[in-house]
């Protein structure tokens, strides 16, 4: 069983987001970067499946050298090796191309990733990779078990859930509760230093989109206190300011 997990390197959800250089660039100086939370679920389930099947697990990230601590964490958790495609991951099609290029060379049985990144939230990459490899792609997968070459899955759909079976190879976008997030142990952290981390240049420089400028939502306004008996003012505010009535 050869498993590939694609991970993103994203700002911690508690980070305060600031843009610089005319709102064209994220100020990364004071930001703590983490593995994308949905990707973290994918990594956790992949580690469990690797242990069950005695297979191998590779993690892949499209990113610059700053993302290597995030990749090291995946190695500390139990991945065997890592591949970093040395490029900024700003375009979903470009990222999917890189993953597909690597996957074609390595014949993975299972390609997992988060259902979406939490910075750009495109949720497109798994679908594109499936298309490029001509194999099924499903998302969001909440449960995944393997029986031989068959994957049994639970997927969230509008208003309910569906239970699916499909033959490997597959590309899956994952979300909770597919597995519980894992915490790397000291031994894993130490051994991650000696695990292979291959850096490769992007296969194709084609990017179909580019961000021209970012903008932040307006700052929250102060709380307005209304006397308990003044329902008319409350209704007026809900109608005219909050526009929810």
């Amino acid at each position, binding site marked *: 069983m050869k498993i590939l997990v694609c991970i993103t390197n994203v700002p911690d959800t508690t980070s305060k987001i*600031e843009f610089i250089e005319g709102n064209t660039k994220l100020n990364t100086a*004071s930001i703590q970067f983490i593995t994308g939370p949905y990707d973290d679920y994918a990594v956790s389930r992949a580690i469990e499946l690797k242990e069950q099947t005695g297979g191998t697990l590779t993690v892949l990230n499209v990113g610059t050298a700053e993302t290597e*601590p995030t990749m090291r964490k995946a190695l500390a958790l139990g991945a065997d090796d890592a591949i970093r495609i040395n490029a900024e991951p700003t375009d979903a099609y470009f990222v999917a191309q890189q993953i597909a290029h690597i996957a074609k060379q390595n014949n993975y049985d299972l390609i997992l990733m988060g259902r979406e990144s939490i910075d750009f939230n495109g949720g497109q990459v798994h679908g594109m990779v499936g298309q490029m490899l001509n194999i099924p792609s499903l998302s969001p997968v909440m449960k995944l078990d393997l029986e031989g070459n068959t994957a049994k899955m639970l997927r969230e759909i509008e208003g309910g859930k569906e239970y699916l079976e499909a033959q490997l190879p597959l590309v899956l976008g994952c979300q909770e509760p597919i597995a519980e997030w894992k915490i790397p142990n000291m031994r894993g952290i130490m051994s991650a230093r000696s695990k292979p981390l291959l850096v490769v240049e992007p296969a194709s420089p084609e990017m179909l989109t580019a961000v021209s400028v970012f903008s932040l939502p307006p700052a929250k306004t102060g709380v307005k206190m209304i006397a308990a008996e003044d329902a008319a003012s409350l209704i007026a505010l809900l109608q005219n300011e909050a526009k929810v009535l």
Partner: protein
Amino acid sequence: MAKQYYSPRNLKFLLHEVFNAKELTNLHHYKDHDNASFDMVIDAARQIADNILHPAYIEMDTNEPQLKDNKITVHPAVKAYLKAMGDAGMIGATYSYADGGQQLPNLVQVAVSYILSAANNGATMYTGLSAGAGRLIASFATQELKDKYLPKMLAGTWQGTMGLTEPHAGSSLSDITSSAKLTETGAYKIKGQKIFISAGDHDCAENIIHLTLARIEGAPKGTKGISLFIVPKFREENGKFVDNDVITAGIYHKMGQKSTPAIHFIAGDKDNCEGWLVGEANQGLKYMFQMMNEARIGVGLMGAAIASAAYYASLEYAHERPQGRSLMEKDAKNAPQTKIINHPDVRRMLLLQKAISEGGLGLTMEAARYADLSEASANQEDKEKYFLLLDLLTPIVKTFPAEHGIRSVSEGMQVLGGYGYCKDFPLEQMARDIRITTIYEGTTGIQSQDLLGRKITMQNGKAVMLLAQEIMQTIQEATAFDDLKKYSETLQKELGRLQQVIQHLVPFAMKGEYNLFLADANLFMELASLIVVSWQWLKQAIVAQKAILSNNPQGDELSFYESKIHTMKFYFAYELPKTKSYATRLLDTDVLTLTTEKELIF
């Protein structure tokens, strides 16, 4: 409950920018680590703190441990925490590879413990005690005992404790009476009682391992006749674990840190308690002091961590709570209320909180770095130098964050006004929790006597001279920056004041007038603490100033560095001048507490 309890950015600043953790990896002992592994360890601690400890902080206080039918039940989060810490290999991370550790520098371990303790200080007692007890076994016990106890203690399945205090002997360990009698098997029959044993019994560990002080029959009186024993709750016999006659006689209902039971146990009531000698006979107290010095740094760190959690809780409240109008508001009746963070007195309280918690953390990390350098430096001269610096700083590291942490939490409560005194906010719990830190592992009185009576004078004042050199180095570095020059000059003057006080007091010791020498040791501790913490703040300000000048930081990053310099200025302006009153008192030989007239006390 406030979402934030520590600042990852501040921890990164201290670890990498101020104390340059990477430099330690040049030492052979730490060569397998790098900055990425340090950051990963810290991130793993954050996960445990965020997911297990912090959500249970209030619940563990509300549902305190219960003793029923000789069994103590604690909050189930304790089990999850012990498992997570054991699985992560964090309980004994600083131990050598041979003893099951990963040779993590103490500097990084302090950062880890700080996160955990800020999230839930009481819960960290469980792992802290196992690490301390295990360290005694690793340092002094036979390989057979190490193999038997260490793996399970470091895995979090067995709980370690410290069995020192007895009902009639609190801080005075020379008076303990627990006894040990050698048996044919090589084990000792143990008999005695111990009180205030934190994590001394609970249902989240399969066995409790008490590192217990007792006297072997015929041993000399006083401290020279005390030996150290492993006394488990269950002992192994023929491959099975049987009851070792260690009974929980009672549980203390504490003011704070309610998550961890403190118990009274009786060993050998049925004459069926066995213990195993650790190291040599009659060396128990010496061994125990090794652990005690580490524990003292741990208690200081706990003070800084609780102060940090309180700071972020009150800061969050101050940003949200509207109350009153600006002092400069001309149309007060019609103007909307302003957030309380805009009131100068609230800012004063918040700045004091920040100064104490971040200054206390810096001081603790400095001590941890000295511990690493004394343990792993390549040459003997450096080892000795850093050992002396660590030895000198230890009582201050134990005391400053505890005593001033209490002040800091109290100011935090004041920021919240009446709400701070209520259970709706965590400040009241933090105020109860932190109170013990001035008592644990030697009260402030004992630390102060240790500092003045032993550490200042040891090796003819060599440690003080080494510390003065370290402070002078910072002072000289600060003079290179125009904005910091004024503060470097102030600190140099204060260093002179400290030397003047020492020169005044030490002759009393040389003349055998110990009463005059030590009567106001507590005030000396305050004086020394103010100067040492100011040194730490100047050190942090230098790094911030350099970063501003050379890295062109923007936005929050610039604010972070500027706030470091501002807090240094605050500490120098509002706290450091207090040295004058302490020095005045210490230079006066009319010591009012030495009166022998009993009626003057009433």
